[in-house]
């Protein structure tokens, strides 16, 4: 019983982390309809920035986290302005090829600069170990992840639903031409959103080094997970990807714990079944454009 709750807790933490990692992709892939397989590269960039700052420059962990966000967002905005924006209107095949190219380059570049072995980020002593909560072991680090990611999710929802920027974004996505006609600077909105999504991925990458492991193959290893979150979650709101992340996180942790023989098999099967059953995702709204 307690192991069940601990697993559930781990699964929720894992799912929250996946959500922060993937919600930028929910915007580019789900809303802007751009197949960006390189999303994990931005997460990796954030993770490595954090690792360098903490391990080599001796920064405190919590001071390095915002920088992971900022650096990934900066890389994101530069690449968006230089490369991505030329490809919004191109075919999916072109977008796939382009982003695979980007993944290959990022993998080799990080391998060259940082070496190919897995790296660890030194976390503060306060975050190590477990708290015993009515007999249920709760990892402190995972608790922190749930807190941070939960707050981020609420903030995101508020920004999207309540602010002027949120309504501009929704308008730009629903109908770019009409949005331009209304005087909304659509390319700027897209660029900012893209950068913000990359920043969140970077933050997620920094947080995930402890749980998912961080090595140069991160973008390839977790690409499928990010894609599952977005395609299964649908793109009508951020609630869909959020629920999908939680499902995926809990399912993956439970699958690995209870049926280790089947491993990732469960996840892939569920994904294929869901996509066949509801091609626009479990929580999708209309036909994909």
């Amino acid at each position, binding site marked *: 019983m307690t192991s069940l709750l601990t697993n559930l807790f781990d699964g929720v933490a894992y799912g929250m982390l996946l959500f922060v990692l993937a919600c930028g992709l929910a915007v580019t892939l789900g809303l802007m309809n751009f197949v960006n397989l390189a999303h994990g590269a931005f997460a990796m960039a954030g993770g490595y920035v954090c690792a360098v700052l903490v391990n080599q420059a001796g920064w405190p962990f919590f001071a390095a986290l915002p920088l992971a966000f900022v650096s990934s967002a900066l890389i994101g905005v530069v690449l968006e302005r230089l490369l991505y924006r030329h490809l919004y209107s191109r075919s*999916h095949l072109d977008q796939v090829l382009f982003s*695979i190219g980007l993944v290959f380059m990022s993998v080799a570049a990080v391998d060259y600069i940082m070496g190919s072995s897995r790296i660890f980020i030194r976390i503060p002593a306060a975050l190590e170990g477990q708290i015993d909560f009515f007999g249920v072991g709760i990892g402190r680090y995972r608790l922190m992840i749930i807190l941070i990611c939960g707050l981020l999710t609420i903030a995101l929802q508020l920004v999207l639903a309540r602010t002027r920027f949120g309504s501009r974004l929704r308008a730009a996505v629903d109908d770019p031409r009409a949005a331009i006609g209304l005087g909304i600077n659509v390319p700027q909105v897209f660029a900012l959103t893209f950068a913000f999504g990359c920043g969140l991925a970077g933050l997620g990458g920094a947080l995930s080094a402890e749980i998912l492991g961080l090595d140069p193959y991160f973008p390839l290893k977790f690409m499928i997970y990010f894609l599952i979150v977005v395609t299964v979650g649908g793109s009508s709101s951020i609630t869909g990807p959020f629920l999908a992340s939680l499902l995926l996180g809990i399912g993956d942790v439970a699958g690995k714990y209870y049926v280790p023989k089947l491993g990732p098999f469960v996840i*892939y099967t569920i994904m294929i079944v869901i996509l066949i059953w509801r091609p626009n995702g479990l929580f999708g709204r209309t036909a994909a454009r």
Partner: protein
Amino acid sequence: MTTPAETVGVYARQPARWHWAEVAFWIAALASAFLFPSRYLIMTDILRLGLFALSLDLILGYAGIVSLGHAAFFGVGAYGAGLLALHGLVTEPVLALLVAALAATLLGFVTSFLVIRGVDLTRLMVTLGIALLLEALAERFSDITGGTDGLQGIEMAPILGLFEFDMFGKVGFFYSLAVLFVLFLLARRIVHSPFGLSLRAIRNNPLRAAAVGIPVDRRLIAVYTLAAFYAGAAGALFTQTTQLASLDVFSFERSADLMLVLVLGGTGYLYGGLIGAVVFRLLQEGFSTLTPQYWQFWIGAVLIAVVLTGRERLHRWVRLVPDFLSRSRAKPKLGAIAPTSDPS
């Protein structure tokens, strides 16, 4: 005076005739065996990759199905051939190749029902998912597949009972070339048949194709299954010529590299995969000698450059010479029915 139907027939048959450049291409392929006798292994590799790319061209270039998991069929073919040889079920390589490719075909047929549903993105995810699924399965059932070690100790029987595989890969090369050529002839026949033309119609506009009476779903299932056969054959060739099958036959990198191969050569005229395979391997060789560990960086850079330049533009440059030649020869005949767009 010809009727429009006849004119269309002439126009449809015209690219099906053998162009001298095609003959030259195959003569060059055969001649390379005698020109570079010390490079059999890499040339065999190019042939395998070319066959694999040909398979992707059938679905991508002719039917417009984007697949990120084509390695699934390659892997099934590879493990199929490996297991057949290892357990002595079918020892004769040509027969084993057929059996392994048919296993991949079966998988292709079953999964095609999943793939034809949905839009591009769903297809990407489903094909990718299937390949990952198979990779996970192969890793899990390590008592059959050998797990991460792969299949080891595969001994190949002589081809047709006559030609023993030698350690320099000479027999392997000619065997691969023969398989590629036969399968290429078959593919060439198919894409120039009414069936092939209907595939192009589907690629250009599925809705309109359905409106003129083409059974879109059935055609897509058929071509996807056919492509699975080709990929399975390429996988089987891989195992038979390297006497090795490991988990990386299913890997995502293999599917991704394959796309680059096809894009380098251009889609929709069958030779794209073969030319792309040559260019890709040469690039890879070049980059490997430049930076042994980090050649993927430059492959990625090439991919991005290709996309940003525009595949169509690149494709036009590649086809400049053959187009020029065929234009000066065949244009006057068409007369009445001028093609409004590039047929490829």
